[in-house]
């Protein structure tokens, strides 16, 4: 059954090719069937593979399928192979599962578009690339998926290619991602230089015995990989593309810019947990960048009026949480949050899509209000997901977020916990601000048209996702570790052989004559303080409720309050303008580069080419001196001949 794994990414890619080449001839209905059939088939295959994996003998946690040698150069051999292990299975399930649901939704959402087939061509291709990303058994294959999804994201953001803003957003996304990829490539190069291989199994098994704990190489590898992750997962400083990416159709935002692609960075860091374990410095960086992004993006999210932009900043913020979890070594929590986030954020985006669809592509929340009667299903599912993201017991977000906060405090420090808690409060606030502004209060839209709930094909996915968002938390209940299914499941991947690391590093440091530290961080076992855990849960629940209450007061009870409190404050303007980061990047990086290049070009013509033409001119000048002697008169030439002849005569005789 495991042998079928290679089909999983291939099917959507084939679907994409069929849609792309024959889409116009096939007609929309057939395209829809092909496009949705592929992901669903992949999902079913994933289930079969999962079953096959469960049937593997005890103690076998990795199963590899090598299709062919992709790049064989001397001792650098890259296989095209898929690795099936608990982590990749989880990711495959999320990607193909959520992907299938969103594909179905997209059929309804995009049905009126002329280039329906083009959309599904990209969309299927994305799914294939994403599956390659999570299934690859080496860094380079991951990079294929990594750039492949980036490329599809570029296509899909720029789907409405006649809009300048969409094109700009697409190009921006690609270029910013490229900055991250640049670092990723360097990281891979470092890895090969260090380990002589880029296969996961080789690298991760060799890492504890070849890299010194806290050494410069380990840190460089991790930091470069992490920069790559910040690009893809929209973390500080490379987050600016994600809000702009909302120019794409809403299903795209749901699948790519919320549920799957942007979490690829988290997957990658989790995958490389062995390497990160060797570099405490980079772990701290990951944690602080994640925590910082969680708070930073949440503050921006509070002041946005475009419904999708709020969700985009919310995504950035939530991924920040995941990195925060990775940074404190709680990879399970990160993956847990990744899963639940995929559910509720996809649901939120699709819900917003329904609203936008029903409101004739109006995205400004200030022009909504009181929509709950017009969108009953959307309203309920949206509310469920919002409660989940805000962290209300017993919805999925509560468990996953709480686990992160707990680990932030226990394995990290109070500052990280503070960041997480602040973020949680802000999240609850801005999400309910969104809900209140959209579904409650007075209607502010043009009353002449009637908003309507979309068709079943769009509401069914909402219900499914809302259900998942509700019950997804059951995957891991933090207190009772016996019940933490996900933790046990992922244990083989996230297990770090601390003793080997300590032995090797000690040996190495003694050899190099260094003082050997006590390796506290590695030997430290997280304690299970049940009362503390429960009280923390209470605190975070209180925080969430506090956020919701604040939003209620601001936007339902006293709608004038925001303006009176915040109106005219410089801080509000700053937040509304997203801290003017884009403007500053444009002013200090983009413009100077373009202008500099322009002068470089002019210089190229004047200086570099000038030197060439100058050399030619010098020869030309000498030629001009010789020119009078070429008078064109035959007699002159004869005269020179005679002179020469006489000279020879005189010389020879």
């Amino acid at each position, binding site marked *: 059954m495991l042998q079928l794994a290679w089909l999983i990414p291939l099917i959507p890619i084939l679907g994409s090719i069929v849609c792309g080449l024959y889409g116009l001839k096939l007609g929309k209905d057939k395209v829809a069937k092909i496009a949705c059939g592929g992901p669903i088939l992949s999902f079913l295959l994933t289930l079969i593979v999962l079953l096959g994996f469960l049937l593997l003998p005890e103690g076998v946690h990795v199963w590899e399928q090598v299709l062919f040698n992709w790049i064989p150069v001397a001792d650098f051999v890259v296989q095209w192979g898929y690795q099936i292990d608990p982590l990749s299975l989880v990711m495959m399930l999320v990607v193909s599962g959520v992907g299938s649901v969103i594909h179905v939704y997209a059929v309804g959402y995009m049905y009126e578009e002329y280039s329906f087939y083009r959309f599904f061509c990209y969309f299927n291709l994305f799914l294939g690339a994403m599956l390659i990303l999570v299934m690859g058994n080496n860094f380079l294959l991951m990079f294929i998926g990594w750039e492949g999804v980036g490329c599809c994201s570029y296509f899909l953001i720029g789907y409405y290619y006649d809009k300048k803003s969409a094109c700009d957003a697409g190009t921006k996304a690609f270029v910013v991602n490229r900055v991250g990829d640049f670092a990723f490539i360097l990281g891979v190069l470092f890895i090969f230089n260090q380990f002589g291989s880029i296969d996961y199994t080789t690298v991760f098994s060799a890492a504890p015995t070849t890299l010194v704990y806290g050494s410069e190489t380990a840190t460089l590898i991790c930091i470069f990989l992490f920069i790559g992750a910040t690009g893809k997962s929209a973390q500080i400083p490379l987050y600016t593309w994600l809000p702009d990416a909302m120019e794409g159709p809403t299903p795209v935002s749901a699948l790519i810019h919320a549920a799957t692609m942007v979490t690829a960075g988290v997957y990658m860091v989790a995958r490389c947990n062995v390497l990160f374990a060797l570099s405490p410095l980079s772990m701290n960086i990951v944690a602080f960048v994640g925590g910082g992004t969680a708070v930073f993006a949440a503050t921006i999210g509070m002041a946005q009026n475009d419904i999708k932009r709020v969700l985009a900043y919310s995504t950035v913020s939530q991924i920040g949480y995941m990195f925060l979890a990775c940074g404190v070594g709680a990879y399970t929590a990160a993956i847990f949050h990744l899963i639940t986030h995929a559910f509720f954020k996809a649901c939120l985006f699709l819900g917003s899509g329904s609203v936008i669809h029903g409101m004739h592509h109006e995205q400004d929340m200030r022009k909504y209000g009181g929509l709950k009667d017009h969108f009953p299903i959307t309203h309920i599912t949206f509310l469920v997901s919002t409660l989940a993201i805000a962290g209300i017991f017993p919805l999925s977000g509560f468990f996953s977020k709480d686990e992160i906060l707990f680990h932030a405090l226990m394995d990290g420090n109070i500052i990280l916990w503070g960041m997480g808690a602040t973020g949680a409060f802000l999240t609850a606030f801005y999400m309910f601000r969104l809900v209140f502004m959209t579904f409650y209060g007075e209607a502010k839209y043009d009353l002449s048209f009637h908003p309507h709930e979309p068709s079943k094909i769009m509401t069914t996915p909402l219900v499914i996702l809302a259900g998942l968002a509700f019950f997804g938390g059951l995957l891991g209940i933090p207190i009772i570790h016996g019940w933490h299914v996900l933790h046990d499941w992922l244990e083989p991947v996230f297990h770090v052989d601390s003793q080997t690391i300590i032995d090797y590093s000690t040996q190495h440091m003694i050899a190099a004559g260094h003082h050997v530290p006590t390796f506290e961080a590695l030997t430290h076992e997280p304690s299970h303080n049940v009362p503390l855990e429960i009280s923390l849960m209470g605190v975070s629940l209180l925080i969430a409720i506090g956020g919701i209450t604040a939003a209620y007061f601001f936007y339902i009870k006293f709608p004038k309050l925001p303006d009176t409190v915040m109106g005219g404050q410089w801080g509000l303007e700053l937040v509304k303008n997203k801290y003017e980061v884009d403007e500053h990047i444009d002013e200090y990086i983009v413009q100077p580069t373009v202008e500099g290049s322009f002068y470089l070009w002019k210089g190229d013509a004047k200086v570099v080419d000038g030197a060439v033409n100058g050399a030619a001119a010098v020869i030309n000048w000498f030629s001009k001196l010789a020119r009078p002697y070429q008078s064109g008169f035959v007699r002159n030439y004869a*005269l020179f001949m*005679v*002179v020469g*002849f*006489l000279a020879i*005569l*005189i010389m020879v*005789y």
Partner: protein
Amino acid sequence: MELFFFIPIALLSVLLALGVVFNSSPIGSAVSLIGMMLCLAGVFVLQSAHFLAILQVLIYAGAIMVLFMFVIMLLNLKTAEDSVWKSREHNTLLSVLTGFLVLGLAYKMVEIAMDSNFGPGMPVKDGFGTTEAVGTVLFTDYVLPFEVASILLLVAMIGALVLAKTKID
């Protein structure tokens, strides 16, 4: 005896050659040239190259010079358009230099001839310079150049035709 004929013929040929250069009318030049050719035929006879002497008269004095006269008549060149010493630029210095140059050339060649010491030549065999003798050499050792020369003449003929042909559309 040879000297007796040589000196007048040589002097005459030099004078006629100068006449070619300094005659203001092309026809005068051509006539002088014919005279010079005939003188040279005489010189060839003195060298017992009788066959060549005949050829000289036939080809040069006959064929080639007729061609010259023909072209002069065709173009109706009664007087030369230039007088000998006046170039258009009136560059006296250049003219004088040219004169000195040619004088130097002549002087140098004469000097070389005088300085070299050849001594008496070999005795002349019977039948030297006859048609038979020259013909034997021509058709044995030099048969290939001879044939090539015929091709050359053919090419020259065609070339002259093409060049001189008036373009008729």
